[in-house]
């Protein structure tokens, strides 16, 4: 996706094609899909998910991981990783508004950008009609 040599700022991990799907939406809206590396849990055991995420952190140098579901296997694997990786931040239960906000603040420290994006993501869930 897009031009080369943009450093990956965060990893998005989740069920099925959640990660690649939500990142493709960020790319479509803001052209910033390259800021993210994606991981799917499909077909992987918990150990394999953890190894895949560990490799993604090492390869990218990212310090932020976004996951889809609090009890999901990616979330559980990341929480295991956090024990041996201080300085890495996990945000779970993400949505597109959150990820876009993070992507648009790529000049900020990634941990601060993630914290700020959290508020945007929460606020984006609204109800209309009856």
């Amino acid at each position, binding site marked *: 996706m897009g031009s080369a040599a943009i450093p990956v700022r965060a990893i998005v991990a989740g*069920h099925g094609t959640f990660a690649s799907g939500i990142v493709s939406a960020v790319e479509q809206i803001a052209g910033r899909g390259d800021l993210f590396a994606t991981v799917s849990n499909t*077909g*992987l*055991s*918990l150990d*394999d*998910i953890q190894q895949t995420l560990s490799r993604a952190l090492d390869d990218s140098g990212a310090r932020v991981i976004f996951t889809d*579901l*609090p*009890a*999901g*296997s990616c*979330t*559980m694997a990341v*929480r*295991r990783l956090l*024990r041996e990786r201080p300085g890495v931040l996990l945000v779970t239960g993400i949505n597109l508004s959150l990820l876009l906000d993070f992507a648009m603040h790529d000049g900020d420290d990634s941990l601060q950008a993630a914290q700020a994006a959290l508020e945007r993501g929460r606020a984006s869930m609204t109800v209309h009609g009856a």
Partner: protein
Amino acid sequence: MPIALYRIDDRLIHGQVVVGWGQPLELRFIVLVDDEVAGSEWEQELYRMGVPPEMSVYFHGVDDAVPRLAEYERMPEPGIVLTGNIATMQRLVAGAMGQVRAVNVGGVHHAPGRIGRLRYLFLTPAEEEGLREISAAGVDVTAQDVPTAKPVPLADILSATTST
């Protein structure tokens, strides 16, 4: 039948269990049977934090779990018994002497030495034998990852092959 499901799943507590099965079966407790997790306070905390507030999680090693199954069967609301591998479920079934009527094989993923049977099920010859022995004890063994999928009987599991 307060224990609605005896499930083998190498991801233990995760989305399919908590949401996929948890919501339609209205599960209110998970009995996680795993010798390693039972010995680690940290692991237990990890899993405890992964479940929604309406669910309780109980941790046991196999030997510790067997005498408590009857107690869990008497719980007022439904729950699930989870093991992370076939060998653990086999020990549980053997120890429980007839209390376990059916076992759900929910996820055993790819690893060296395992042959692909279903999208979410890869087995070594020893694991296949383990499932046969569980079945031979009079237990209905089927594979089913999520409630909306069709349960696959053991004979069909063992004759199935997958290209992944």
